[in-house]
């Protein structure tokens, strides 16, 4: 049998790949095992929104770093900085908007509150019922479907072995490392990192760790190419709508409306009643969208824990086993979180504090449950 890998990463999403790249940069021999294709899970099917306005306060420093990573990746990931508007349509929404956005501004995001008239000047096609908005010139998006191609290329350049379309059946701890059984063969590694998103609970359980991971089934839909109706990233104060018209003219609509299904079943389904509310909100905000045809709607599994902060660090009680993932909005911060965990694995002090999985000790809750 060949020499054990220094690090075996299970899950080839943004976070797993970014951690693998950092570890390889530090001299480790790394392999990434991915059940489907690199970047094809939540990393590849989200709306690609890179918005500081929708980031949580405590995650803002990480979001700013992650944002910088996407910006640097540039054209290869379809990065566009177009600025973003978050809209409020009544006095109550306007109050919530200004209270939240000013705190985010204080946390470092370049956000300002602007008037309804200023909104109409920038985006004349938006609903005239806007009463207030926040504006962040840095907001933008990337093309999530390119995540896989980009990371596949980075992994190859860094000499990280990527095994795609390979399912991990078992992870067993041994005296000097781990034995990982896949459908194809058996691999040995000194360290393992679980970065399998919604598929992480079953793997973590094999190492005796059962954090209360829940899975959201986020719905996204897209129109066919239509004449330009809007330039900026558009959001609703509740976060229940994100909307952007991409370069090619298609309009991508998200907002975290819930579909159904579980990662283990392997298929998520659109729930029409919820998709329709998402679409109504989109049409209300941008009436000209009404005549656009929807060509595709899909779902992605987004894992989270009750506090909605990441799990990033050592698996409690299992030396040399790490877990990373489980956060809302992981697309933006993912590359940076991966890098931090890569540093931890290398034995370096991470630049910013991690989110210790110890806060969810084993048996702190049931394994995967679906959110209502």
């Amino acid at each position, binding site marked *: 049998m060949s020499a054990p890998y220094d690090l075996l990463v299970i899950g080839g999403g943004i976070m797993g790949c970014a951690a693998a790249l950092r570890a390889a940069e530090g001299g480790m021999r790394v392999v990434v095992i991915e059940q489907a294709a690199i970047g094809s899970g939540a990393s590849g099917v989200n709306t690609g929104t890179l918005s500081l306005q929708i980031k949580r306060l405590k995650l803002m420093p990480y979001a700013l770093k992650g944002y910088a990573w996407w910006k640097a990746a540039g054209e290869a990931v379809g990065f566009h900085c177009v600025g973003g508007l978050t809209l409020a349509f009544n006095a109550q929404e306007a109050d919530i908007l200004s209270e939240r956005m000013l705190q985010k501004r204080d946390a470092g995001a370049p956000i300002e509150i602007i008037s309804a008239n200023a909104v109409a000047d920038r985006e004349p096609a938006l609903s005239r019922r806007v009463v207030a908005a926040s504006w962040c010139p840095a907001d933008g998006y990337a093309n999530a479907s390119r995540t896989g191609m980009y990371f596949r290329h980075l992994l190859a350049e860094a000499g990280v072995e990527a095994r795609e379309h390979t399912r991990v059946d078992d992870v067993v701890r041994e005296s000097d490392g781990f034995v990982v059984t896949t459908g194809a063969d058996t691999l040995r590694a000194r360290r393992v990192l679980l970065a399998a998103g919604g598929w992480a609970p079953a793997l973590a359980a094999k190492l005796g760790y059962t954090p209360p991971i829940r899975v959201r089934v986020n719905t996204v839909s897209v129109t*066919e190419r239509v*004449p330009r109706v809007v330039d900026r990233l558009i959001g609703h104060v509740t976060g229940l709508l994100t909307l952007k018209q991409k370069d*090619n*003219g298609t309009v991508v609509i998200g907002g975290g409306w819930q579909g159904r299904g579980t990662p283990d079943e392997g298929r998520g389904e659109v729930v029409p009643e919820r998709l329709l509310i998402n679409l109504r909100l989109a049409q209300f905000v941008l009436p000209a969208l009404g*005549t656009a*045809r929807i060509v595709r709607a899909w779902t992605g599994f987004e894992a989270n824990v009750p506090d909605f902060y990441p799990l990033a660090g050592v698996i409690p009680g299992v030396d040399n086993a790490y877990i990373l993932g489980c956060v809302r909005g992981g697309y933006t911060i993912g590359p940076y979180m991966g890098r931090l965990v890569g540093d931890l694995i290398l034995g370096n002090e991470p630049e910013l504090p991690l989110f210790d999985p110890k806060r969810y000790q084993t048996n702190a809750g049931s394994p995967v449950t679906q959110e209502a």
Partner: protein
Amino acid sequence: MATTSTDLRMAHASRGRAMQFRFDDGVVTAYEGETVAAALLAGGVRRLGANPEDGSPRGLFCAMGVCQECIVLVDGVLVEACRTIVREGLVVRSAA
């Protein structure tokens, strides 16, 4: 609108009532029960619009509502010309 002089309707077939509809700046004759795509083709109109990616011409292709090549605007909404039955006075526009 480029048209050929000859109608492509078969001579012997029975036809419904004749009617007229608009396509962009022209008036097209059709017969009850015909699809917009068939009536346009019969009248010599092959190009129904442009591909939104590169502006290349597109026209009827699958004739069964699958390929989306023959989409035209009716009341501001894109519809497949091959699935839209003609009505007297229908206003049809080509789309990018």
